[in-house]
């Protein structure tokens, strides 16, 4: 495997074609292959079952063509033993296979595909190169249908009773993408039971899909599908919301398949001796959401329960953190410090540039004439060396480049290859290894920008590649060695908000050995959890909460500040100074990181007679009554829960996520108190997502009445002769209904604090709903855009207690990754002020989003601007806005950019010999000096 350079020759010559499982068998691959283009490590492997040599004993074509002798037919599976202190299982799930018990005609028509197959159809790297066509005849479809809950919320043979949680949102996404991919207007319809877009911002997405993209949503029951092989259409037979049979034909039917647990995972759980539930998901409790039944073994991702990417990423951080607590004493004990050669001082040296042009196998060289680019590069000014590489990023090439740099005494390097986004760091390390500053380097992206997008115009692609290389070489010649500012990280944390999330975050930090401040504005810890009765799994919240509070109170590493407000914040990642007012007294806390867990509250509705009639209450108020064992509840004859009070409305267009489950759980509780009680739940879509579906099923069997009311028509609560009555329209009966009730519970929405002052203090953003924004919804779900600030709990989005807890653990863990470094290197490409030119106008100070510029307070340049290198993100706003031209961005200075532009302007001529161009550069200097008096 070390020898393989992924040149692709083996696959090119391999005579055996096999269905490509990565393309869901829609396309073909060879018997020697990489699973997908972005595979890490990028190495070819032999599919033993299909290899002609391994099955028949002859062929060996791949070994013949392999230039590095990397083919080893004798390779065998090996057993490796590792001694570890913790184990994290993240083995995930697999998609439901609709072919096994084929009720939807999946195996009968090519045009009935699973949602994963449809993803491949849409992908530009997929079997149809991103052209949206029907698999049967490659014609562009006019109509596509999605069928939801395939294999989920279904107790039939082979299906699963739970909700897979992710399919509604992905179906909306696929429908939107399909519309964008389609040349002609495309009709899309999603056939569903309930639309469950309960994740953060998912409801907005659903609204956009429906209102802006025009996706049709059809609440229905599918009876059967009839494919027509002649037309390629499939006729969907279904019963609509009102119980009427309908038929509609579609070009493609996408089965929104659910998530399920594979045999291998079950086997693994058996070996690990961890307990699974009746669906084979790993059993966890709500207060320790990543802990399995076996100590030291942690779980994250969809093997714990069906979940989306953000939740999985959050859980993975949480699991890593929990595993880390056990291993705290061993921190840094297995790390090896890399030996870095001393940096060569290149000051005063003329540029000696090395240009390495990558073929990327056939990825670049298949389109771009790489040798021609190399030839052109050789003639550029200051270029001492230029060559092509098969794969510039492979380890052996890295080593080779290191040697060339040393041998040729290169002091600048250009790599013309792929995107710096993924590979810049790697190549910079190569420079470091060769003993030169890593900023003496730049990349030309001749893959994405040339061979990919101009795949059909090789000449133009080559010309553009030459232009890019010439430009970047002109720029690199002007690069300078940069130093990275180092920042000491204060080894303590601040957690703002003492609710469940805050408590868990503080405890996690302390358990990892860090001194932590926990701030709460109220007089007691616990937040909203003080009002909650039970989790959906039936665990008693008050018991757990008091244990948690006690654990932080007793923790010597945690300082709890009650009745405390934040007045001001100075500093930045690693060195925050937060000024607080504690019972009115001022105090300043120093800390390296900040976790924001300020929570949210329950909406006090101004409708449905709330506040006017005692019999109308919110969900939390009912919880409180249950906690208090209120006797009156038992004597209630009829109770009605009204869902989505204040949520999913134009003013507050998000879903509050927890209320459906909470209402079902409390309905069941009421029913258990008084089995004769009539309990109704009036809803828009029931959203007991994931395994919570069981609770929903249970509630229905217990006789709780679920009625979908028409949201577009009014729902009214009134008092008639002392009796509460609810008037609404039933969507399936299409009638006006009236329920007389003794108790009305409003599933009121979760509301964040809009215009939270922490937004300005820590420079973090709130979304339109008032929830704090994470740096990236999927990749960085607990980080804020501001370094060193993390998020968890309801302040981030509505979520149940188990998710709050895992997010709190994740936030603390992400914070620990920073704290554990003790110091950090900041990027060297930052702004600096030429104070001779600074006019002190202050535009930079006012425009910087990170407060990096300020005025020098003493010395020769008093009053001139200076930039704190640690705060600067190198965004360039100050550079662009400085009228005096006093601010420069290291690595992107004006003359560097100009050099690039002028290089673009130069029309390539083979005779642009280097010596003469050097003269030209020399003359420019002369020109600058020519401003002499006469």
């Amino acid at each position, binding site marked *: 495997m070390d020898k393989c350079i992924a040149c692709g020759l083996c696959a090119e010559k391999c005579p055996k074609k096999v269905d490509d499982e990565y393309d869901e068998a829609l396309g073909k691959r060879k018997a020697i292959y990489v699973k997908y283009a972005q595979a890490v490590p990028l190495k070819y492997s032999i599919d033993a079952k299909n290899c002609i040599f391994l099955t028949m004993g002859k062929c060996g074509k791949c070994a013949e063509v392999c230039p590095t002798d990397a083919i080893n037919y004798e390779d065998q599976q090996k057993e490796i033993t590792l001694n570890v202190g913790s184990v994290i299982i993240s083995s995930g799930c697999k998609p439901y296979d609709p072919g096994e018990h084929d009720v939807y005609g999946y195996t009968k028509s090519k045009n009935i595909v699973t949602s994963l197959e449809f993803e491949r159809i849409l992908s530009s790297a997929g079997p149809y190169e991103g052209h949206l066509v029907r698999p049967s005849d490659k014609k562009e479809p006019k109509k596509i249908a999605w069928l939801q809950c395939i294999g989920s919320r279904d107790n039939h043979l082979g299906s699963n009773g739970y909700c897979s949680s992710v399919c509604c949102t992905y179906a909306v996404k696929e429908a939107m993408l399909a519309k964008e991919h389609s040349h002609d207007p495309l009709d899309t319809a999603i056939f569903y039971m309930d639309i469950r877009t309960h994740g953060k911002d998912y409801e907005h997405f659903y609204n956009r899909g429906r209102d802006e993209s025009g996706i049709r949503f059809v609440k229905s029951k599918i009876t059967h599908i009839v494919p027509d092989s002649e037309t390629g259409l499939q006729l969907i037979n279904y019963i609509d919301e009102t119980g009427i049979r309908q038929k509609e034909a579609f070009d493609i039917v996408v089965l929104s398949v659910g998530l399920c647990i594979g045999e291998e995972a079950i086997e693994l759980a058996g070996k690990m001796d961890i307990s699974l539930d009746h669906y084979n998901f790993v059993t966890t409790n709500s207060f320790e959401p990543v802990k399995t039944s076996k100590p030291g073994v942690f779980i994250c991702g969809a093997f714990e329960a069906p979940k989306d990417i953000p939740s999985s990423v959050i859980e993975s951080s949480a699991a890593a953190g929990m595993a880390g607590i056990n291993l705290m004493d061993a921190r840094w004990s297995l790390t090896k410090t890399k030996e870095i050669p001393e940096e060569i001082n290149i000051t005063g040296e003329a540029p000696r540039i090395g240009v390495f042009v990558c073929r990327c196998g056939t990825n670049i060289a298949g389109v771009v004439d790489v040798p021609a680019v190399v030839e052109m590069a050789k003639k550029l000014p200051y270029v001492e060396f230029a060559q092509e590489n098969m794969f510039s990023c492979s380890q052996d090439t890295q080593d080779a480049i290191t040697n060339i740099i040393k041998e040729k005494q290169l002091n600048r390097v250009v790599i013309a290859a792929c995107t710096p986004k993924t590979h810049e760091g790697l190549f910079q390390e190569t420079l470091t290894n060769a003993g030169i500053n890593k900023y003496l380097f730049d990349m030309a992206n001749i893959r994405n920008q040339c061979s990919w997008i101009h795949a059909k115009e090789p000449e133009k692609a080559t010309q553009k590649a030459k232009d890019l290389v010439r430009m970047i070489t002109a720029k690199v010649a002007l690069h300078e060695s940069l130093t990275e500012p180092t920042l000491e990280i204060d080894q303590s944390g601040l957690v703002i908000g003492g609710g469940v999330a805050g408590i868990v975050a503080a405890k996690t930090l302390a358990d990892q050995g860090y001194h932590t401040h926990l701030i709460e504005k109220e007089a007691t810890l616990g937040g909203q959890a003080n009002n909650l009765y039970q989790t959906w799994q039936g665990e008693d919240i008050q018991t757990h909460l008091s244990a948690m509070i006690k654990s932080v109170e007793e923790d010597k590493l945690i300082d709890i500040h009650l009745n405390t407000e934040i007045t001001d914040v100075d500093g930045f990642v690693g060195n925050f100074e937060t000024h607080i007012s504690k019972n009115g007294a001022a105090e300043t806390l120093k800390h390296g990181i900040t976790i924001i867990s300020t929570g949210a509250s329950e909406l006090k509705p101004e409708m449905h007679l709330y506040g006017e009639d005692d019999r109308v209450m919110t969900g939390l108020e009912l919880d409180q009554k249950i906690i208090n064992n209120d006797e009156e509840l038992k004597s209630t004859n009829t109770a009605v829960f009204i869902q989505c009070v204040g949520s999913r409305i134009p003013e507050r267009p998000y879903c509050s996520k927890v209320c459906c489950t909470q209402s079902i759980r409390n309905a069941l509780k009421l029913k258990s108190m008084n089995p004769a009680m009539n309990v109704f739940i009036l809803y828009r879509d029931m959203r007991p997502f994931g395994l919570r579906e069981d609770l929903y099923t249970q509630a229905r069997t217990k006789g709780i009445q679920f009625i979908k009311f028409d949201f577009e028509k009014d729902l009214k609560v009134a008092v008639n002769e002392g009796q509460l009555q609810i008037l609404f329209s039933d969507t399936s009966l299409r009638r006006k209904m009236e329920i007389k009730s003794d108790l009305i519970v409003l599933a009121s929405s979760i509301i964040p604090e809009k215009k939270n002052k922490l937004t300005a203090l820590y420079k973090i953003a709130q979304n339109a709903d008032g929830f704090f924004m994470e740096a990236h919804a999927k990749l960085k779900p607990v980080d804020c855009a501001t370094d060193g600030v993390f998020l968890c709990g309801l302040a981030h989005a509505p979520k149940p207690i188990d998710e709050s807890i895992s997010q709190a653990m994740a936030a603390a863990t992400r914070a620990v990754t920073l704290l554990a470094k003790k110091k950090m290197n900041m990027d060297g490409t930052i702004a600096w002020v030429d104070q001779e*030119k600074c*006019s*002190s106008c*202050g*535009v930079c100070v006012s*425009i910087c989003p990170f407060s990096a510029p300020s005025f020098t307070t003493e010395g020769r340049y008093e009053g001139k601007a200076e930039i704190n290198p640690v705060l600067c993100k190198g965004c360039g706003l100050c550079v662009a806005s400085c009228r005096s031209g*006093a601010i420069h961005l290291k690595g992107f200075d004006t003359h560097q950019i100009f050099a690039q532009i002028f290089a673009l302007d130069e029309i390539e001529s083979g005779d642009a010999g280097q010596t003469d161009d050097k003269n030209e550069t020399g003359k420019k200097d002369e020109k600058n000096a020519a401003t002499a008096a006469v």
Partner: protein
Amino acid sequence: MDSYTTKIRELSANLLKDEKVDFIIGFKQGTIPMAASPHIAKTSEQAEQFIWDNNCRINLANYLTSRKEKIGIIAKGCDCRNIVTHIIENKIKREQLHIIGVPCNGMIDKIKVSSLFDEEITGYSETDEVITIKTLSDEKNINKTEVLKSNCMTCTHRNPVIYDELVADLVEEQQIEDQFSDVRLIEEMTADEKWNHFDNLLKNCIRCYACRNACPLCYCPTCFVDESGPQWVGKGQDPTDIRTFHYLRAYHCAGRCTDCGACVEACPMDINVRDFTRKLNKDSLEIYGWEAGLTLEQRPPLDTFTPDDPNDFIK
């Protein structure tokens, strides 16, 4: 205007006597007709040279840049607006200043006046509303309002916006119906017409940079036209370079220009440099509701970013 002069001398002498300021900046009588020269008085005797008349056109805020002393300044409406801008842009501190505000009735345009005569002007005198001009062979009375500087004609901030003392009661501000009719004329031109308009406007420019140097906003230690690394603009008389200078200078003044007219006043070649800045002033007012130098509380709109900045121009 004599009463203004008397009052200015009196206030200045007192300030200097009481050592409230290190010196005072004002105007003294020029050596030629229709000229007033910026004057610095360090003693109460020197303060006796202060005058005020219809020729105090130069913007005195220009003399405050990066001063460290405690300064008294005689300032009309536009000067005060530039003092505000100076304070915002850290060119001077409010505490350093004692502002003697002059409610202004507009200044006269010396070129407008001289264009009324075939001969050179040899004498000038004024009363409140009328100016008297002498040439070698002629003498004429002219109504002041007929020869006002064009920026004074559309000025709506004649009174000082910031001051410590006033030399007279505030004057009534002009009600201008159409402040930007000149700009609109240019806006209505086709691209080629505009090009020709500016071509014609700049044909005599000698790049002395008097417009820049007279402008209180142009205080950069190194102006972009003087920069040699990189050299943004060629230094010769190439029309492209001349245009580049004027356009860039105007953009540097966007949202900051008070239309004081110092640039036009300083231009030896009679170029209406305001044609460049006026359009940006109009846009600032129409897009951001902003006129420069009226408040110490806020930076000019183009210096900052707020999420509710208008962005209709972005498609």
